[in-house]
């Protein structure tokens, strides 16, 4: 096949060469003119001037002037266009013209990037949220998701953790899938990228959230983000469209002289909230009280207490102020047919937890060439990221991370061991010393990633073009981890070194053809194409222990003892091959039709089910352009839209349909280990696509001459053939098999409104969005329910059940605390001060079957409101983001109330006001019998840990001042931004927005990296 591609390239090349030879014109007329901004009379540079009916195009110079020397005879009509202004047609007779353009404030005229092309917003039939640079969240942003969080209706951005560069989970219109990914597809400048995390995972802890793969894309390079939500918009991405698509467009140069821009900012981060745990004195008195209540000698004698003194507040020890500096230098400009944009960026952020941070270096070059016959472009991004990790995650005991250790470590353990001078360790609590974990573990990753694409579009005739687009994304990452003798684990093994590497490579080839023509009232665009994409990745992991010294770290692993060496390699590939097509048809500028089709083939499915077919159809109607609407003055824009279509999901990992044999442990005979090989999965040769059918109906409106604009959308998505890890009886030899079973429904509303409240010197605009999503599981293959979820000491805490939201929380409901002399029939053995559980099935005893649904992780609604106030050169904007309803499970509460060992510290919640005979509260148990006689307290959860996740947050407040231009610079701005300044929430943990599972739908907070407040001061100068 390679040979065929080369043949194609060379053929295409030679035809281009011929085309170049076809130039040459005769001059029949000359026309001079100037284009200015109507509002301030300023000349406009880079305005496109085209003689109607021809392809002749020139651009205005920096003074807004142009001269047309053409073969066209006068008079003729000019089409005058530039982004941001209303396009104009003007008839000219040869005398110099002065053209005034009116600024286009309505977003409805904007050009919107859609799959495999662009469209005018007014012609859209699908549901697309478009966020341009001016609407991005300001402040210190490491990755693109920070820019758009809260800005678009129906798009829920959940930061898995607030660690520098941490991963993010984005849900567009709810969650479709149980075991396949629910993350949207990311397309950067037309290149669909593999957004799976390829940085090796921690060798120390089970990380809750790997870092964000999009960190390699510098957010300052982004010009706009489009979020495709309905089937009409996403079906062109077929198998990868079901979760929505995020199109990222990077900045282009503008025609005109070189413009150099330097943006520098510095930020300070501080922990927004700490978790209240028992202070040293509270801890001592609690433990002594508990001992006394059991008739035992005190845990701490007066002598001990005197020796302990103040003890340690571990959270104070591990949190610090974090600092960020960000430098962005960009160069852009262009000549009439050629534009360029290049940038260099350096970001250095230290985390608010000691020993964590990220450093990033990125470079980008975007080149674009456009003439009447050719469009050619290159987008190239390269990044190097140095991640500094502090071990943090969801593992437990000796594997627990720093936040877990800081919450639960014994506060009476000093920081240092007085004898050795090393970090103190204790065998009474199976946790590392948090500081030992931070400074005794060296954990760094270096990731290099270069991705980009080049395209060539050839206009055979003005109406018909063919395009070839090729892209590649090459990423290599190496993570070095060393646990030295300052950690308990490292000390016991005499040092543990681990080096892990991954290499991934993603290649894209797209061949598309486009035909666009307007005949009188009909406007037609037809797109067809073929795409092929290949994803390769491989890993090499090695580890060694038992070093004579910590000095080598990971740099000389042969210094460990060879019996401890481990090595592992893995290689994997998957491919996609697709045919796609789209028709956009507009009649009379009033009636719109979009039809999409994609046939997608994925290597991941069963031999007979490789291909999936994803059609969609959408209709639109500009009601306000109808004659009968002419007299309706208040409504300036009214467009109705409706779409229906199918999209798919193939995000399940490779090789799941096959019978595979792999290494399955080692047998030992005598003193030799021999590798065993056996079947690794219960294969499903019929594995096929998960399909989502979505209906969307929407209204785009503008009132009062579009001072108020907005949209309302209703959607209803049904996902069928869910890719489900179906639990099977383990008598089969396996626990689960991936099966197309079950179904899910998501439906809801989205509202967006933008208003211009005041115009003039003092101006005020508001934009707001609100979304409502109702999710429910509608089928799980006949099983009564499926229990999922496992973190920390707890498992099976979320449930899949028909009619209930996906992964609703599942456990015992606490109805109170057993009082003295009280008889609670279902729990005859309980002691006063024990929790009373609801006898849900009313069988007069408490058992596993009394567990019930304790809440939904889905919010009732989410909203965002931004206000921007301008006065002269000052601008103040503040952005509120909120979530109402929905629950989050805090497993730190469960852990604290079922302490795994007596000497662990506890959350002060529930212990400072615990039940005693003299404090007969019905709120909190006595804390005496953590292992309840009736419930498997060690593994299950109860309602005390299921918390409201509602919040309202002043996510962003920014103040900027535009410095008047002078001889040194064209423009300059100073700005100050505060992020996460205020949060109103009853939530107990650091932040109700986290998710310990990174990208999963199980909403759990467990040892989250705390939220930070960020204060950024920046300067932006354009030369």
């Amino acid at each position: 096949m390679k040979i065929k591609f080369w043949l194609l390239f060379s053929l295409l090349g030679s035809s281009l060469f011929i085309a170049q030879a076809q130039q040459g014109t005769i001059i029949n007329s000359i026309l001079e003119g100037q284009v200015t901004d109507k509002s301030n009379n300023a000349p406009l540079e880079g305005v496109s001037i085209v003689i109607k009916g021809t392809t002749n195009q020139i651009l205005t110079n920096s003074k807004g002037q142009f001269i047309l020397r053409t073969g066209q005879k006068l008079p003729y009509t000019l089409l005058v266009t530039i982004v941001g202004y209303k396009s104009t047609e003007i008839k000219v007779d040869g005398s110099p013209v002065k053209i005034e353009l009116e600024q286009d404030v309505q977003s409805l005229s904007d050009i919107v990037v859609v799959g495999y092309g662009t469209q005018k917003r007014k012609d859209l039939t699908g549901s697309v949220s478009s966020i341009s640079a001016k609407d991005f969240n300001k402040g210190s942003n490491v990755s693109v998701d920070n820019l758009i969080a809260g800005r678009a209706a129906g798009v829920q951005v959940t930061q898995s953790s607030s660690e520098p560069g941490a991963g993010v989970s984005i849900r567009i219109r709810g969650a479709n899938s149980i075991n396949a990914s629910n993350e949207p597809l990311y397309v950067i400048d037309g290149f669909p990228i593999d957004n799976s995390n390829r940085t090796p995972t921690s060798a120390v802890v089970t990380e809750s959230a790997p870092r964000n793969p999009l960190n390699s894309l510098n957010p300052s390079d982004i010009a706009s983000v489009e979020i495709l939500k309905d089937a009409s918009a996403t079906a062109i991405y077929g198998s990868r469209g079901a979760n929505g698509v995020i199109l990222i467009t990077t900045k282009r140069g503008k025609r005109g002289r070189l413009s150099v821009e330097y943006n520098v900012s510095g930020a300070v981060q501080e922990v927004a909230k700490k978790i209240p745990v028992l202070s040293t004195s509270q801890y001592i008195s609690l433990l002594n009280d508990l001992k006394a209540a059991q008739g035992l000698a005190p845990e701490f004698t007066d002598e001990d207490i005197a020796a302990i003194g103040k003890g340690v507040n571990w959270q104070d020890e591990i949190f610090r102020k974090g600092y960020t500096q960000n430098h962005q230098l960009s160069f852009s400009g262009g000549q009439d047919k050629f534009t360029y944009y290049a940038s260099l960026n350096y970001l250095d952020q230290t985390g608010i937890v000691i020993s964590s941070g990220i450093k990033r270096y990125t470079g980008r070059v975007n080149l674009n060439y456009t003439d009447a016959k050719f469009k050619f472009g290159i987008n190239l991004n390269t990044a190097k990221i140095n991640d500094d990790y502090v071990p943090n995650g969801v593992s437990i005991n000796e594997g627990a991370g720093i936040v877990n250790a800081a919450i639960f470590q014994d506060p009476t353990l000093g920081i240092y061991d007085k004898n050795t001078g090393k970090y103190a360790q204790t065998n009474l609590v199976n946790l590392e010393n948090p500081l030992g974990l931070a400074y005794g573990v060296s954990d760094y990753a270096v990731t290099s990633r270069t991705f980009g694409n080049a395209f060539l579009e050839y206009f055979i005739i003005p109406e018909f073009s063919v395009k070839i687009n090729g892209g590649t994304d090459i990423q290599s990452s190496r993570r070095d981890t060393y646990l030295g003798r300052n950690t308990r684990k490292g000390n016991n093994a005499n040092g543990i070194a681990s080096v892990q590497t991954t290499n991934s490579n993603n290649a894209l080839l797209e061949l598309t053809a486009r035909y666009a023509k307007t005949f009188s009232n009909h406007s037609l665009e037809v797109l067809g194409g073929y795409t092929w994409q290949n994803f390769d990745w491989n890993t090499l992991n090695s580890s060694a222990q038992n070093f004579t010294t910590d000095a080598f770290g990971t740099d000389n692993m042969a210094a460990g003892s060879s019996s401890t060496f481990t090595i592992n390699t893995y290689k994997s590939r998957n491919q996609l091959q697709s045919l796609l097509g789209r028709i956009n048809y507009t009649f009379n500028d009033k009636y719109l039709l979009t039809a999409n089709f994609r046939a997608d083939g994925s290597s991941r499915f069963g031999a007979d089910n490789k291909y999936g077919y994803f059609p969609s159809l959408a209709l639109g109607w500009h009601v306000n352009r109808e004659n009968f609407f002419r007299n309706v003055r208040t409504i300036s824009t009214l467009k109705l839209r409706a779409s229906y279509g199918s999209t798919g999901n193939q995000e399940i990992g490779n090789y799941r349909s096959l019978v595979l044999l792999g290494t399955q442990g080692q047998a030992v005979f005598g003193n030799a280990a021999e590798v065993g090989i056996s079947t690794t999965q219960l294969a499903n040769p019929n594995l096929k696509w998960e399909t989502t059918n979505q209906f969307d109906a929407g209204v785009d409106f503008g009132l009062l001459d579009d001072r108020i604009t907005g949209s309302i959308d209703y959607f209803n998505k049904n996902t069928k053939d869910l890719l489900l890890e179906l639990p099977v009886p383990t008598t089969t030899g396996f626990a689960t098999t991936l099966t197309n079973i079950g179904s899910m429904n998501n439906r809801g509303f989205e509202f967006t409104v933008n208003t211009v409240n005041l115009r003039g010197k003092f101006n005020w605009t508001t934009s707001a969005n609100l979304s409502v999503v109702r999710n429910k599981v509608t089928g799980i293959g006949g099983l009564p329910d499926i229990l999922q979820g496992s973190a920390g000491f707890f498992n099976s805490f979320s449930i899949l059940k028909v009619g209930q939201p996906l992964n609703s929380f599942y456990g015992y409901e606490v109805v109170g605390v057993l009082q003295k002399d009280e008889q609670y029939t279902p729990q005859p053995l309980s002691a006063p001060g024990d929790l009373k559980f609801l006898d849900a099935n009313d069988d007069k005893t408490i058992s596993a079957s009394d567990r019930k649904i304790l809440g939904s992780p889905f919010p009732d609604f989410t909203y965002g409101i931004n206000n921007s106030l301008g006065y002269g050169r000052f601008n103040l904007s503040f952005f509120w983001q909120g979530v109402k309803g929905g629950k989050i499970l805090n497993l730190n509460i469960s852990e604290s109330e079922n302490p795994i060992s007596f000497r662990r510290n506890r959350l002060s919640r529930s212990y400072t006001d615990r039940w005693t005979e003299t404090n007969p509260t019905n709120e909190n148990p006595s804390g005496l019998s953590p292992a309840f006689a009736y419930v498997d307290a060690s593994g299950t959860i109860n309602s005390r840990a299921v918390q409201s996740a509602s919040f309202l947050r002043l996510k962003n407040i920014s103040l900027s001042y535009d410095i008047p231009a002078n001889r040194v610079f064209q423009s300059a701005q100073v700005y100050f931004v505060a992020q996460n300044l205020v949060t109103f929430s009853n939530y107990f943990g650091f932040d109700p927005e986290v998710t310990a599972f990174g990208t999963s739908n199980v909403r759990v907070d467990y040892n989250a990296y705390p939220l930070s407040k960020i204060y950024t001061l920046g300067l932006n100068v354009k030369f």
Partner: protein
Amino acid sequence: MKLNNIKNMKMKPYYILLLLSLTLGGCGKDVLEEDVYSSLGVSNYFKNADDAEAILNATYASEQRRPFRDYFIMSDVTSGTLYDRAGGLEALAKSFETFSWGATHSFFSGIWARHYTTIYRANLVLDKVPEIDFDENRKKQILAEATFLRASAYVILKDLFGPVPIITTSNTSADDRPSRPTKEAFDKFVTDDFKAAAEVLPVTADRGRATKGAALSQLAKYYLNNKDWTNTADYAKQVIDLNVYHLFDGSADRSELFNPLNEDNSEFIYIRPRLAVAGLGDNYISHAAPPSYRWKGGNKENYATQFKTYSSYYDSFADNDTRKNAFITEYYNTSGNLVQLGKDDIRNFKFKEDFTATGANSGNDFPVIRYADILLSRAEALNELNGPNVESISLVNQVREKAGIADLSLADFEGKDILRTAIFQERLWEFPAEELQRQDLIRQGIFIQKAKDRGLAAQDFQVLFPIPQSEIDKNSNLTQNDGY
């Protein structure tokens, strides 16, 4: 530029482009074939003797690499000789200490799944190996080893849960809903498998492999726990008559039997071998070691969780019983101070420190069945059959002599009951931490009573554990044990 020109000049490459796209589309099947690199497929496996050995190895791996502590806690904590405090394990072990376990306890689902994995892999061997063309003799042995491993997994499942579904094929499906067989059918299946294996298995093999003696011993033990005394006595005799097993005589101190230096002995009939290598080691000692214990050999994990032995059990040993030497009552900590362990805080260092090991990977082999067990099993069976007799006394005395304590005398045992009690007492001293105490107490009929004596609300049905709730949920044909 006129349209005609363009047409003439440019249409040709465009056609080719279109043609090429179609061609590319046409070769889709090949493009989308999955290339597998780090695993094997059915097409390139089950071909030769090495493949047969490797799938057998995976079956052994599943059995040998079973985490020791779940089963250990279920046996020894419920028996009241030991308990666990602190660390991640306390809450999990607590319900076994207090007889309050429920069907959702993670130990049950873990053990159930582990042994059905072993059974699946054994079935894969039994299904695939006959089709492979290689040395017929070794082929028969491999099949016998797989049969042995499968039956051994069923022994453990039955010990915990009673009769469980019998699976005899690797061709399993997500739709399988097997039900539980009768006790008779289950017993016949297991004993037939062992008998068939015993016919083929060699008398000696590398340590860790199934042998004829291992299969005969499994039969003796299975019949013992079924109180089928005749067969117990018979199969125990067959093991003895193989003349390859002897009580350990490498040291006058019987506790040295469990020193990793002495593990290549003729007393261990069948073992789960461990190596001091990552993933292949054992971490018993990391649970038993008291806080800040100063290791004599390589530095090891010392878990927060602590296996503590009751003083009453420790005190029951005669002072000259060398098996008592396995326990420590005081130790030097890392600061060099001698620390006294208090009441009910005795540490059983039965699986002695592996000096070469570091971290959590010690090389102590775990004896599944050893010769002393066979001797005491025959002694018990003969007593049940004939009442106190010379041979039973002599068998018990063989063990007592190795422990350094005085012989029993037949004259001291007037009735079957008294000798039975003495034999069980001997077993209690001989087999702590060997996962046998629970089944011994159940056989003796005092498992529940002893728990009640400790003040617990134990109930008679708790001689069996519940079928894991998650399995009942997935398989409606699976019936729960009475009482749960």
